[in-house]
């Protein structure tokens, strides 16, 4: 070990292990290390080191291969019952094996399956979820369109009910209505949850989720009435086949509309069981995930920048010794905010998760009163945490001087993973405005003396101002 780093560790006033236990819990920490050891010793995962020199096709293929090998390994070790119960574990497993923060199946695990769980009826969950958990159905979540993003009421894809055949006719009426960007849509998925405007007898009933089969389950060929493919190269995320999807009057059975929150009967009768905002729960879930994910990416960049700052020496002092750059106040102002913000975001992630879980438990009992709070909270925090993390990772990169620009730093990869977090699941300015709209509504409630949820109770302190 480099003597400077060894000395730093010796002089610390606490044992890092105690802090690791605070962050992960003792059991999880042991499991993380066990998995890491297994992966390090498994030749199946050695080739992944070649990612930076591979073509896009090779990167995609290698990512799919690693994912398959990991699933088998996790099953072999008894880590998986349903893969979605071990979501965090799977992410950790994959990242360690492949050096990258994502994989072509991430929307399948993060959005497709949770949407079935959250928005399907009990019968639909029984039908679709086991197939998703065993990857018989590989799915994605197709909401964003070529010409439409966060403003989801503006989506154009239609699902028109045909009473005669008891089917929905899914159609992309314009070029701007082509589904665009969903991860895994290009080549990986054979199913998608498609968000479309429900139309019955010429009347529009708003946006609803529909299960659409995209490819033949045996041959993986696209089905008739569908055109789909990969959207081509991006700034990063090369392992993911973000895709486009166009429907040409494509028919699906009536029972493929996810009907926990709203139903269409055989004779075309529409009924709603929950408020329309329930449809947006998947987005809140993903935004919560982003809040947690950016904390880990920032912490990785902070780790790299801090260790390097302890090793690197620069500019001789009056005794002719080059000090460690970590001893310069300016360098400290680069790395210490990144370290402290990482910790703040870790704890923030835990709290948001707790709130989300309690809101979901209430929703399952039919209480949807806290959904607006959840929406406001996850919109604001997703935007804020990803903005700040991006800025701080760039500062970490600069804190490594010229070497920070080399892919050898590892920070360039982290930056590529962080940048898209500022635009996917809602561009950050749009999300701040969604949050602000909620704040204005809650302020109105506060002025009327109504009770506010815990994260918004500060608005009730009007007499203090």
């Amino acid at each position, binding site marked *: *070990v*480099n003597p400077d*780093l060894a000395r730093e*560790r010796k002089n*610390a*006033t*606490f*044992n*890092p292990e*105690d*802090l*690791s236990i605070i*962050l*992960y819990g003792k059991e999880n920490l042991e499991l*993380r290390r066990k998995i*890491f050891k297994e992966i*390090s010793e498994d030749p199946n995962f050695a080739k992944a080191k070649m990612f930076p020199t591979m073509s896009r096709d090779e990167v995609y293929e290698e990512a799919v291969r690693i994912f398959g090998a990991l699933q088998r390994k996790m099953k072999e070790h008894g880590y998986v019952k349903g893969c979605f119960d071990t979501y965090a574990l799977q992410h950790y497993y994959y990242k*360690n094996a492949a050096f990258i923060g994502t994989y072509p199946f991430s929307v399948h695990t993060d959005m497709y399956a949770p949407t079935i769980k959250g928005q399907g009826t009990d019968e639909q969950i029984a039908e679709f979820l086991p197939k998703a958990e065993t990857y018989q159905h590989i799915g994605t979540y197709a909401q964003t369109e070529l010409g439409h993003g966060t403003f989801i009421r503006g989506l154009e894809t239609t699902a028109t009910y045909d009473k005669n055949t008891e089917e929905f006719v899914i159609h992309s009426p314009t070029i701007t209505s082509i589904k665009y960007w969903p991860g895994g849509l290009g080549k990986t998925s054979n199913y998608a949850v498609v968000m479309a405007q429900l139309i019955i007898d010429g009347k529009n009933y708003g946006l609803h989720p529909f299960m659409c089969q995209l490819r033949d389950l045996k041959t993986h060929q696209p089905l008739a009435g569908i055109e789909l493919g990969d959207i081509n190269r991006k700034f990063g995320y090369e392992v993911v086949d973000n895709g486009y999807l166009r429907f040409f009057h494509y028919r699906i059975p009536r029972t493929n509309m996810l009907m926990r929150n709203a139903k269409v009967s055989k004779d075309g009768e529409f009924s709603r069981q929950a408020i329309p905002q329930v449809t947006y729960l998947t987005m809140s879930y993903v935004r919560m995930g982003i809040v947690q994910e950016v904390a880990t990416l920032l*912490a*990785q960049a*902070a*780790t790299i*920048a*801090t*260790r390097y700052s*302890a*090793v690197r020496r620069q500019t001789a002092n009056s005794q002719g010794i080059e000090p460690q750059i*970590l*001893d310069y*106040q300016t360098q*400290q102002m680069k790395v*210490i*905010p990144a*370290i*402290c913000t990482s*910790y*703040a975001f870790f704890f*923030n992630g*835990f*709290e948001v998760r707790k709130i989300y879980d309690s809101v979901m438990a209430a929703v399952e009992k039919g209480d949807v009163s806290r959904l607006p709070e959840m929406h406001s909270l996850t919109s*604001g*925090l997703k*935007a*804020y945490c990803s903005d700040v993390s991006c800025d701080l990772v760039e500062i970490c990169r600069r804190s490594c001087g010229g*070497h920070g620009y080399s892919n050898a*730093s*590892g*920070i360039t990869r982290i930056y590529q993973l962080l940048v898209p977090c500022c635009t996917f699941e809602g561009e950050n*300015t749009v999300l701040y*405005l969604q*949050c*602000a*709209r909620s*704040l*204005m509504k809650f*302020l109105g409630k506060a002025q009327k003396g109504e009770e506010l949820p815990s*994260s918004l109770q*500060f608005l009730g*302190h*009007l007499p203090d101002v």
Partner: protein
Amino acid sequence: PPELMSAVKFDMSTLMTAFQLNALRSVLHVASELQTAQKKVNYETAWNNNLQGLVEAAKMYSVYLVAKFFVSALSASQWESRAKAVLTQVCEFYLVNNILDHSGTFLQNDVLNPSQASLLRTRRIELLAELRPNAVALVDAFDYPDRLLNSCLGRYDGNVYEALYEYAKSSSLNQHQVHPSFHKYVKPMRETL
């Protein structure tokens, strides 16, 4: 609150009061601007003319939330005492640094006065020095293995320069001592000049 107005030293509770008040005043400020604007123009135009203020209010709300969650995690915990002590420093630095990062808003909202901001700047420098000896241990605690970091600079063993040298040698351009482009393009170009 009087304890904030007269503060010459900021403990966690005073700092949190400042965050909360700043978020509240940011929201109230833009709400009042919206209300005034709506007397002259319709709701939509009033909203569009106040977008920057609305974004600022949402940001200050988010800043407040992160601070609140960090402080409440810290106060509710029964952690190992030395780890908790360093986490308390981390938290204080986070709060102070964020107030200073958004000092324009805190001053504009009359949450702080300039001399209090100056006190916080001094405290931030003190905290930098207090955290400096624990910087490496703090990142070690994140427990990221080298394989995940995939970084020559952030290696646990600190053998940075050896790793950078090996990384350079592995460049695909180094597969040939003389790259084929030399004979193909450089030589002919030289001959024509």
